[in-house]
């Protein structure tokens, strides 16, 4: 992947500096971001240095202090924005029951329901392209968290991640199943291939996962995010699979979703009960952050859904703007 198209003065300055290289420890004085998407795409690229890197950026820049300072500032803004959206939660006793209840009570428009019944082929292909930003690194942001956990939680998370990563078989690795599905649809499966067309909401959704995954302090939020993600996947995956079949899309992409019907019916139990359950038992002080992460997952997905559905004229403008 090459550095994406800049989306304003900040990303323009950052991407140019990344390509040229920074020779001293002191970075330039960065311009302020023009808009949310300018900040979001800048942060997204800074995070990519920690995943697979960019072909036109030197690997040694991953830990450059000037870039870390900028990342720190952008992360501060993002975290403050996410925390301001979180309304808190009411405690109702048993963690597992309460958590599943919290997820069930969170309402929003469903992209999967639209795909199942009404979406046309172009809309579905667009959705696959923008979703690819996450699915090509599926589970990776959560894998950062492993070394930061107490014993029981670490074992529980690995039990789940082992399945995400194909149980040792590269052919079953979820991100790889996704890549095969993309290829079968005639889409590019290269990491970040469609970054220039993803809306701000997708960038923010992706950045939130990296933010939670890369900070030990936010391990509760990372695992709460994971649990909410898994707990809202099984049934939507069935809808996606049915929609893709309705539109006669290739078997490989249908298979990706079919795999997630059963896999995530397991993963949701593990993520909620053994992963988050053991974490809050061992570190009760993290409970609020577990819910903050869960809320963020559900809320950002709602924002993505509103954005895409409004774009396709499925949601009216006002409804779109309100959420």
């Amino acid at each position: 992947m090459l550095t994406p198209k800049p989306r304003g003065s900040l990303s323009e300055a950052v991407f140019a500096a990344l390509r040229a290289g920074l020779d001293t420890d002191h970075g330039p004085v960065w311009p302020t971001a023009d808009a949310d998407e300018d900040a979001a795409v800048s942060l997204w690229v800074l995070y990519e240095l920690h995943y697979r890197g960019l072909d036109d950026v030197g690997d040694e820049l991953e830990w450059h202090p000037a870039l870390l300072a900028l990342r720190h500032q952008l992360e501060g803004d993002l975290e403050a924005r996410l925390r301001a959206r979180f309304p808190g939660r009411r405690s109702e006793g048993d963690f597992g029951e309460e958590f599943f209840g919290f997820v069930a009570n969170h309402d929003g428009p469903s992209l999967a329901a639209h795909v199942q019944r009404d979406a046309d082929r172009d809309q579905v292909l667009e959705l696959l392209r923008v979703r690819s930003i996450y699915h090509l690194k599926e589970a990776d942001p959560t894998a950062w968290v492993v070394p930061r956990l107490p014993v029981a939680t670490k074992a529980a998370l690995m039990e789940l991640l082992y399945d995400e990563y194909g149980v040792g078989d590269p052919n079953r690795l979820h991100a790889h199943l996704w890549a095969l599905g993309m290829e079968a649809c005639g889409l590019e499966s290269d990491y970040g291939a469609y970054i220039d067309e993803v809306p701000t909401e997708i960038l923010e959704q992706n950045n939130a996962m990296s933010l939670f995954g890369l900070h030990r302090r936010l391990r509760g939020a990372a695992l709460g995010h994971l649990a909410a993600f898994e707990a809202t996947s099984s049934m939507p995956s069935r809808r996606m699979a049915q929609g893709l079949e309705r539109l006669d899309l290739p078997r490989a992409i249908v298979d990706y979703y079919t795999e997630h019907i059963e896999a995530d019916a397991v993963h949701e139990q593990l993520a909620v009960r053994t992963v988050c359950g053991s974490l809050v038992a061992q570190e009760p002080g993290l409970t609020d952050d577990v819910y903050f992460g869960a809320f963020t997952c559900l809320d950002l997905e709602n924002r993505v859904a509103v954005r895409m559905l409004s774009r396709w004229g499925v949601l009216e403008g006002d409804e779109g703007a309100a959420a």
Partner: protein
Amino acid sequence: MSEARSFDHPDVVLCPGGPMLLRGDHLVEDADGVTHRTERPVSAICRCHKSASKPWCDGTHKLLPHKQRPI
């Protein structure tokens, strides 16, 4: 609580209101007598009888009123 202790790690877990988790490799016979081999490190067996992927859980139990979910 010290972490230098042993932890419970059962092979079979009954999830309140949801499936039965089964760790490891097993042959599961469904209600029609058909045998299915587990395919993942942990499998979820439907206990609410409403899954469309029986014998595996597909999350449908969450749509049932609380009283109709498995104990």
